């Protein structure tokens, strides 16, 4: 018997030299990244800012931006039981999703605590794509037991770009992709240089915008083609700082930032249910059993939710990031998970988790440490509960999209 040759000739151990993977768009994002600001995202390098986050955010709201979303985790689900499978896994009723349609959903563990949120794309009658923040292959595989479904992690098989902003439809039109009839949360396929590019009217900015999905080997031609088409319309690459600002204005929550996914929570009390994150509207109670259903029904019937996720208006212009909320300025009642002074709205906004009994946010105060010329000043400001999304322009939904 001979040992495996790999035991004698180990591969060169040089993975540590580039611990983060590069997306198919890296040659372009790298060249454009004047500050070389990078952050890790699902094991990939992602640009935080190409030079000026403020300009990038301004472009999201006033022109158009390209944001590389290739690191997003993507699973392909196919097979006769694909609908039954996704209905078992997620909160919403996938049976109501038409081919060519996309919906935002979430899923929980047995105890009804949220594991992640994401989008489900129905590519065919028995063909779906699930996009999300965290990796879930073991859980997805376990959920598939006894069902006729095929599961594939296609995170590396697809390059993806988010093209967002009021002129995004115009840029696509210039690029030869006619998206005039494409409604929000719908997708369509277009020919591009001998391959297909899938364009969905989805995004994470709450504005008019699209996401483009293509094989990695056509990623760079697509980038170049779009940048050329958008050159006269102010199209520019955007980094995650600008996008996170835009998502907060849109009132979207982010796994790992606004809540801890239960499978990663070290502290038992960090787990959150869909009720506690304002995601309970997703729950399709009448679709049959799904994982977490009984725990959620018990929470609904017993009114045992411990937390509520709220949108807040805060006086002044100092961002309340990471601040603690107090009831009557004294007792802790919650904490802020995301906050900014919104350049679009000219308002100081925040997303917060508050104890369920303080869900109305009456008599809640936020304690902010404002840095003013090397010196922190403590502010105690009253907060007002406000509806999410904070920013929801009509243009995000108009079909055909407006020409700006």
């Amino acid at each position, binding site marked *: 018997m001979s040992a495996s040759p790999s035991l004698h000739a180990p591969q060169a151990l040089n993975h540590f030299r580039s611990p983060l993977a590069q997306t198919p768009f890296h040659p372009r994002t790298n060249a454009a990244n004047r500050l070389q600001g990078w952050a890790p995202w699902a094991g990939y390098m992602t640009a935080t800012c190409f030079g000026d986050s403020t300009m990038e955010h301004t472009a999201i709201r006033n022109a158009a931006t390209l944001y590389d979303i290739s690191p997003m985790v993507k699973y392909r689900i196919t097979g006769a039981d694909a609908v*039954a499978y996704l209905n*078992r*896994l997620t909160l919403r009723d996938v049976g109501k999703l038409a081919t060519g349609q996309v919906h935002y959903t979430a899923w929980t*563990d*047995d*105890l009804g605590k949220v594991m992640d949120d994401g989008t489900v794309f129905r590519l065919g009658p028995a063909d779906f794509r699930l996009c999300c923040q965290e990796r879930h292959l073991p*859980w997805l595989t*376990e*959920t598939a*037991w*006894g*069902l006729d479904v095929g599961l594939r992690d296609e995170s590396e098989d697809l390059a993806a770009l988010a093209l967002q902003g009021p002129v995004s439809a115009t840029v696509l039109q210039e690029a030869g992709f006619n998206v005039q009839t494409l409604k929000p949360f719908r997708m369509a396929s277009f020919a591009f240089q001998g391959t297909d590019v899938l364009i969905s009217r989805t995004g994470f900015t709450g504005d008019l915008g699209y996401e483009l999905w293509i094989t990695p080997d056509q990623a760079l031609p697509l980038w170049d083609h779009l940048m050329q088409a958008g050159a006269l319309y102010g199209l520019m690459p955007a980094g995650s700082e600008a996008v996170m600002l835009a998502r907060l204005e849109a009132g979207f929550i982010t796994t790992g930032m606004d809540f801890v996914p239960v499978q990663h929570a070290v502290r038992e009390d960090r787990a959150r249910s869909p009720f506690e994150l304002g995601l309970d509207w997703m729950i399709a109670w009448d679709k*049959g*059993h799904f*994982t*977490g*259903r*009984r*725990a959620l*029904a*018990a929470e609904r019937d017993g009114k045992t939710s411990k937390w509520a996720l709220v949108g807040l208006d805060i006086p002044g212009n100092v961002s309340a990031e990471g601040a603690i909320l107090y009831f009557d300025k004294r007792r802790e009642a919650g904490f802020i998970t995301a906050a900014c002074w919104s350049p679009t709205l000219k308002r100081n906004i925040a997303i917060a988790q508050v104890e369920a009994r303080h869900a109305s946010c009456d008599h809640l105060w936020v304690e902010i440490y404002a840095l003013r010329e090397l010196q922190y000043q403590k502010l105690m400001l009253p907060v007002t509960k406000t509806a999410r999304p904070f920013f929801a322009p009509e243009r995000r939904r108009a079909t055909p999209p407006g020409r700006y």
Partner: protein
Amino acid sequence: MPGPSFDRTSSDRSVIVIGAGPNGLACAHRLASKGRKVTLIEAEAHPGGGARALPDLAPGLTPSLAHLVWQLDPRVEAAMDLARHGLAWEATDIPTTVIGREGNLVIRGALTDGPDAAAWKELHQRLMSFAAALEPFRRMAPPRLQAAGNSWGRLAKNLIGIRALGTRDFRELLRVILINAHDVAQDELSDPRLRAALCFDAVLGAWAGPRSPNTLILLLDRLAGEIAGRKGALALPKGGMPALARAMANAATAAGVSLRSNARVSRINIADDQVTGITLESGETLAAPLVISAIGPKATILSLAGAQHFDTGLVTALRHQKSRGGTAKLHLALSALPDFQGADPRARILLTRDEHEVETAFNPVKYGEVPARPVMEVVIPTAFGGTGAHLLSANVQFAPHAPKAGEDAARAQMLAACMTRLEEAAPGIGALITKADLLMPYDIERQFGMAGGNWHHGELAVEQMLFNRPIAPLSRYATPLKGLWLTGAGTHPGGMSGAAGRNAADAVLEAKA
């Protein structure tokens, strides 16, 4: 995890119990005697489960999978009044004879001969006192910190009972409770035959060798039982094990249980997230808001009810629950009584010369192979009264549940190994055999529906005991599906003493009250 719930407004007091093994019978009896309208569904022609009569090997020679009774829950024994329903004992103090290298050794409870007689007496008494301290846990639903309905009073009483062993014994119990049987045998005994007996009994029916971790607690669990008020008993009913099954069935029927044999359940019906009844393979549907399954947690949840009605985490945990059978069952029809080197044929005869043979017989099974020298527990039920032809019944350890060589080849190999071993212990026995039948774990799985061929429908191992039996969210007999309950050997405390059946019935009654 949401606890069990009921539709309290329902006036339907009918209950269906699936599986007429000892636990199903005990459960059905208890519920019927508390006024429930109980239908007990049995797939086979005769009730009894592991105690039921198998087809005659030869005229008058009726084997059964279980061939001795180690324990019968005193609550069940008293409530069912089994004596009145035809149960009599052939013996409740069957001795054990170990066929050793230097002659046979007879063990009667704490009493034996040889150099270790005193050491054995002391060890046996200590183990019995530990077993007695742990025994009360067998008679209650396992505690779970986050579940409602814990009987904190009883739990406290049981824990105080353990502490009442005294400082020295309490400390000793904590030392040995998770130890392996082999270490205890080595520490306390020098006679290889006694070591062999201790190791054999610890791993009987388990998928573990005596050096596997946590095997002593299995022996303590075995010794915790009693029969007819006798602690640490080993008994054989008059008329064999099927007589026990018949007496239990008679008692259940007398209490008002409607027993339906030859009725195999094809599925548990569910509507609006609650159980509505069952459908039989014949197509017949029986309605009931409450179904208690004694046929094994895996089969119940994953097959009869369907995994789609349960959460992914629970299904995964249950699928991964270990259920490997390591024991084969040998039945021989003999033309005359065999001679095990002068051993009393009415004894339980152990064919293992020392503790190492038990461990060595387990080794190949880990790799899906058949041991060359299996160890055996031989019982000759016909020796108590029969004349002429005799039945030899033997538990043979260890046997692979998924043999690499293929099922038929492994069975033939195992039978040959058994015959070699028997011929060595009882020279001339081969010539007496008129018929032989060997049930490998996979045969047992097929004939008795036991997952993996494991006697307990899920291995009895410390990590699958008490509040982890079969898995934590199912350990209090209720399931998350409204109206579906579990009992049987797959639930706490395991075994065929009827304790699981009684506990499950009590849990149903308490929840409903």
